[in-house]
């Protein structure tokens, strides 16, 4: 909380301070919006970028002491078979694009730092953390999210297997687990070895439970539904061409 909103009992300010925490947050947000609008106005008028203000951060690792105006760029993505064109702040991750710009909230934000796998989607068919990918860098790519796996009311076999085997508890990690396991099975079918594969020369992957666990280690489940997640993936792997189980 900013100091100016801290009630000071000694001079009786406690009675006079009427700004609540919620109001303070609102005020801060409004001030931020005003600054953002000012930036947009400058850019819209075609003026050069405002002169950089001295940074108030004493972090010496920052190369240049300036806060720049946000840059917006056109981005075209093919998401779940549908073309989307939008203009985004260059800082926007694929995860925030999906959730905030497109309302595709099936992809979850867990850690936002590539540590939990909740945001896993398929980029051109390969699984990746949507939180560590900038949307502008993905211009022209095809993205598949959890919303794009089913065909109408017909669930993807992996979705059905997670239901059948009760492969979740709270469900927050589940979209990431399912997208990751779909990508993982494609990798296995293509002969990708893993850390626990005993022989690198084998062309065909045998997905033991140890293999499934290792290959899925980038997806954390805080409810620890792992045994049932492995059961679900094992079932689908048995029906995946090119993969032995």
């Amino acid at each position, binding site marked *: 909380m900013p100091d100016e909103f801290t009630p000071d009992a000694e001079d009786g300010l406690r009675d006079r301070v009427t700004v609540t925490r919620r109001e303070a947050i609102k005020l801060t947000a409004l001030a931020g919006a005003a600054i953002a609008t000012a930036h947009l106005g400058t850019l819209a008028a075609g003026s050069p970028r405002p002169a950089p203000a001295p940074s108030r*951060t*004493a*972090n*010496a*690792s*920052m*190369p*240049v002491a*300036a*806060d*720049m*105006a*946000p*840059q917006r*760029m056109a981005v075209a993505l093919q998401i779940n078979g549908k073309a989307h064109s939008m203009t985004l*702040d*260059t*800082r926007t*991750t694929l995860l925030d694009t999906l959730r905030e710009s497109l309302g595709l909230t099936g992809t979850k934000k867990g850690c*936002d*730092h*590539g540590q939990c*796998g909740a945001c*896993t989607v398929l*980029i051109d068919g*390969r*699984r*990746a*953390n949507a939180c*560590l*990918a*900038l949307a*502008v*860098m993905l*211009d022209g790519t095809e993205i598949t999210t959890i919303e794009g796996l089913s065909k109408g009311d017909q669930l993807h076999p992996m979705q059905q297997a997670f239901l059948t085997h009760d492969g979740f508890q709270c469900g927050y990690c589940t979209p990431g687990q399912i997208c*990751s396991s779909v*990508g*993982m099975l494609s*990798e296995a079918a*293509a*002969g*990708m*070895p*893993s*850390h626990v*594969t005993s022989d*690198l*020369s084998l062309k065909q992957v045998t997905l033991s439970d140890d293999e499934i*666990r*290792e*290959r*899925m*280690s*980038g*997806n954390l489940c805080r409810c620890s539904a792992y045994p049932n997640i492995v059961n679900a993936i094992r079932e689908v792997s048995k029906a995946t061409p090119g993969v032995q189980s």
Partner: protein
Amino acid sequence: MKSFTYERASTLSAAVQSAQRPGAKFIAGGTNLLDLMKLQIEAPIHLIDISRLGMNTIERTSDGGLRIGAMVRNSDLAQDAQVRTNYGVLSRALLSGASGQLRNLATTGGNLLQRTRCSYFYDLSRPCNKRAPGSGCSALGGFNRMNAILGVGGSSEARNVCIAVHPSDMAVAMRALDAKVETISAKGLTRVIPIADFHRLTGTTPNIETVLLPGEIITAVTLPAPIRGQQIYRKIRDRASYAFALVSVAAIVDVVGGKIRSASIACGGVAHKPWRIAAAEAVLVGADVSADVTTTRNVFTASANALLAGARGYGHNDFKISLLRNALVATLAEASSRKAA
């Protein structure tokens, strides 16, 4: 994340030209850089996207080695048939790092340039000589379980002391393989840097991690012709998967007629660069590994001690000295006893 301008480079020369701009940075896979930008540990004002410049193939070189394009993804490199057949230690190292999702994004060049995961480097509320030179090292008196035991040099009071480690597994295998890093500068000058010289020790400038000059870009990593011998990557970590190494060993050991003909040993998780000591390998060459277990073990221990010369712990990471010694002995025993493939 601080704002930045974004540029999708269409040619290599355009990319290196743009890199002359103040505050410019290259981005490829982005898995480390974006993470650091979100925390404002990195705050580039101009990002040059080099992910569409090609440089994503793995090709045979004229001397029988491999040239790996800087944009080759970690998963593609680990899966490549030639790498699996002739450079198993590299495939193994890659597969032991990060997660399937991250390996699909992370590139060869970016992996070499990733920054330390020292918890104080990430903690903006604490001093860190790497993040803010001159501010101090919080790891020295702090929770330093993951930190370095080798190559720090100087006393704890030395200017800009830093006990961070380089987090890459891939680089450790490349060090054992004597890889070379190919680069190009803004002026179009190319150079070839042996991986031994590519990463720097912390010295008094822990913020400078490689010998790359401003704007210089990695174009490829080359491997020499396949090296004879058993190749092993042993990684020891707090979790069975998806964790950085406490210590790791990349070993290529060639045993002929019960004697070690050649040995190449590099270690990770212990220094600011992959750690390799010629004296530790010299101890092994010519050693009879068909002798009794005790004699053989003594040779391996002598080699491990040579590699660990000058090692010191900082409290929480004292265990790494004996852990690395044991890991080296176990890896050498495995490499020497395995039947030739």
